[in-house]
């Protein structure tokens, strides 16, 4: 009978550079459900793990930013498909992590799947919405185009361990950035499992890197890291957010501050484009369109 069978537990591991390493420190910490029941020993990542993740994210940036928007959309949609297929697993994990009933956890997972679909559709539309031709007063074609900022550190929401996580990670990579994600400290397991989904969804290794551990211990070196271009402070409390913003000034990272609504973890509301544009640069190129002239030159 099944009663006699002992289930096989999963060893939760980090997701860095498309691989699933343990923390280089060899450390783990105990993860429990809100009632204190043991769920797993998650990797307690170190500063070195954070730096390794930045290296992986930087390496992946050129390819991901250079992929066509259509291709990125396909990949993000594939994430939704893979997640849908693992729906039961995530409902269980989210229910355990956040102490939700099965039906509430199912609603969270469904919303997360739909969020991937929402951002999958944005990849090849945002440039038309925020960019375009500027009617300058001179013989020039002047075009503004959004481009990804680079490597973005994401301090994932603490309470909404899965829908919140997806809501902050998907827009960062939809626009062509690569991400180093610090999972919810208390409830990191859904984030670590998301790594398994990303690994099977044609997301190139290194585009998303997931770390579990102490938020302060990981976010601080990421905020100060000279090869990180932006940071989303969604999961930082006010004190930490201020510290991180100060550290981020050192190489003028683009900072997305926690908003009042974020602290309420209301990620069920329809997202706007704020997170999508937070880590986009605008490049404006001037092309002369003047008379052809005798030589055929346009200037």
């Amino acid at each position, binding site marked *: 009978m099944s009663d006699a069978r002992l289930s096989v537990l999963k060893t939760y591991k980090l997701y860095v550079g498309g691989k699933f390493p343990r923390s280089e420190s060899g450390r783990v910490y105990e993860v429990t459900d809100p009632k204190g029941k043991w769920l797993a020993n998650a990797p307690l990542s170190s500063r070195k793990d954070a730096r390794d993740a930045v290296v992986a994210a930087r390496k992946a940036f050129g390819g991901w930013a250079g992929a066509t928007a259509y291709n990125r959309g396909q990949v993000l949609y594939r994430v939704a498909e893979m997640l849908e297929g693992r729906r039961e697993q995530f409902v269980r994990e989210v229910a355990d992590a956040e102490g939700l009933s099965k039906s509430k956890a199912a609603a969270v997972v469904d919303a997360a799947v739909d969020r991937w679909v929402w951002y999958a559709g944005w990849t090849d539309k945002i440039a038309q919405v925020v960019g375009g031709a500027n009617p300058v007063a001179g013989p020039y074609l002047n075009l503004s185009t959004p481009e990804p900022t680079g490597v973005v550190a994401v301090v994932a929401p603490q309470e909404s361990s899965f829908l919140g996580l997806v809501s902050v990670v998907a827009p960062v990579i939809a626009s062509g950035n690569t991400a180093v994600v610090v999972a919810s400290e208390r409830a990191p397991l859904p984030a670590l499992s998301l790594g398994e989904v990303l690994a099977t969804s044609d997301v190139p290794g290194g585009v998303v890197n997931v770390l579990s551990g102490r938020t302060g211990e990981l976010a601080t070196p990421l905020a100060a890291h000279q090869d990180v271009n932006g940071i989303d402070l969604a999961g930082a409390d*006010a004190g930490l957010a201020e510290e991180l913003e100060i550290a981020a*000034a*050192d190489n*003028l990272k683009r900072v997305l501050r926690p908003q009042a609504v974020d602290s309420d973890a209301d990620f069920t509301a329809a997202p706007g484009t704020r997170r999508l544009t937070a880590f986009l640069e*605008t490049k404006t*190129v*001037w092309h*002369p369109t003047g008379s052809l002239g005798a030589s055929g030159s346009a200037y």
Partner: protein
Amino acid sequence: METPASIFAYAPAPESRSVVDIAPSYGLFIDGEFTDAADGKVFKSVSPATEEVLSEVAQAGADDVDRAVRAARKAFEKWSALPGAERGKYLFRIARIIQERSRELAVLETLDNGKPIKETRDADLPLVAAHFFYYAGWADKLDHAGYGADPRALGVAGQVIPWNFPLLMLAWKIAPALATGNTVVLKPAETTPLSALFFADICRQAGLPKGVVNILPGYGDAGAALVAHPDVNKVAFTGSTAVGKEIARTVAGSGKKLTLELGGKGANIVFDDAPVDQAVEGIVNGIFFNQGQVCCAGSRLLVQESVQDEVLDALKRRLTTLRLGDPLDKNTDIGAINSAEQLARITALADTGEAEGAERWSAPCELPDSGYWFAPTLFTNVTQAHTVARDEIFGPVLSVLTFRTPDEAVAKANNTQYGLSAGIWTEKGSRILAVANKLRAGVVWANTFNKFDPTSPFGGYKESGFGREGGRHGLEAYLDV
């Protein structure tokens, strides 16, 4: 030495100073009134071309900042509640008055800043008026700007601007702020306060409500007090990267919206198929416009190795024809350096270039006896490790590097902490597009350089800052979105 400039010498053609009447002293402009600084401090604004004192100006301190922020706060409620069309009409009025007074303002700016009248008359002032005219039209169309149905003003904007384009930077800051319904406290640079004070008079002529615009001439301490003031909702700064980082640390945790437009080390890339004469004009414009005191200057020339000699010969020939001298002379190409401090900085960096082994060449030209001057200079034999290839000099100093392949050009162009501007010179359209696509810079000029327009978003990547000024994009910095 007989140079083309000496053979074909130009007779002096100075623009008349009589169109501008500079008062012997000016106050701070707070709540619609000119007023002394709380502690009675004043400082002198001098003409960098002659070291003549132009006027004595009240020097704002922390108390004055507080007074100005309170005035701006008081004015905010009514100003932000005005129908957009009415706010827009004030801005249209301002744009028109600037056009009417543009000759006066051009001469004033040239006197206070040291840049050639040719530039203030033909570039600065037309762009200033155009900027106000452009944002005037946005005031009643914000619902259609792509920031939601009813975007709101932020409140009081604290703005700190540099000395290189005093009135143009004022326009870039004040026009979008007012169009979106914010009120402003603006601190002009200590070496160029006068055009901002004349702008205060323009606000009076336009009938702008009191307190909507407040102007605080002063030094860095006043700027620091302004950005740190707890009742400021928005901070906008244009200036050095070092100060920008300090401001970012100051506003951290405050929730103040921040935009920074900082330094640059722009690459001007010349490929072997570029039309040499046009490219040379672009190189000259890129680094000697406004004596190179331009954040988006093309201060690194990347020239393809096969055409290096041809381009450099033509460039040096062209530099010998540049006329340096009286900024008010309509034939002057190169004016004065803005201040003794800036001249010392440029001199020190150029000396470092020489000490590190780069080869220095300056156009033969006579420098006036008084005032602050630096001859157009270029360095060859420059490597990427040289200080003159890495640090922003903010002066008429060009560093020349070479490359062999387009990939190498892109790698070198992007090898900098900055990312503000870049130029590409080639006849090949596909190469323009491919290279422009790979450059990590906010503004890229193809077969042109240093073009600006109020509809065109301007701002940097990386440590050149964040946020955009100009165009629809420029509204975002002043809206609660």
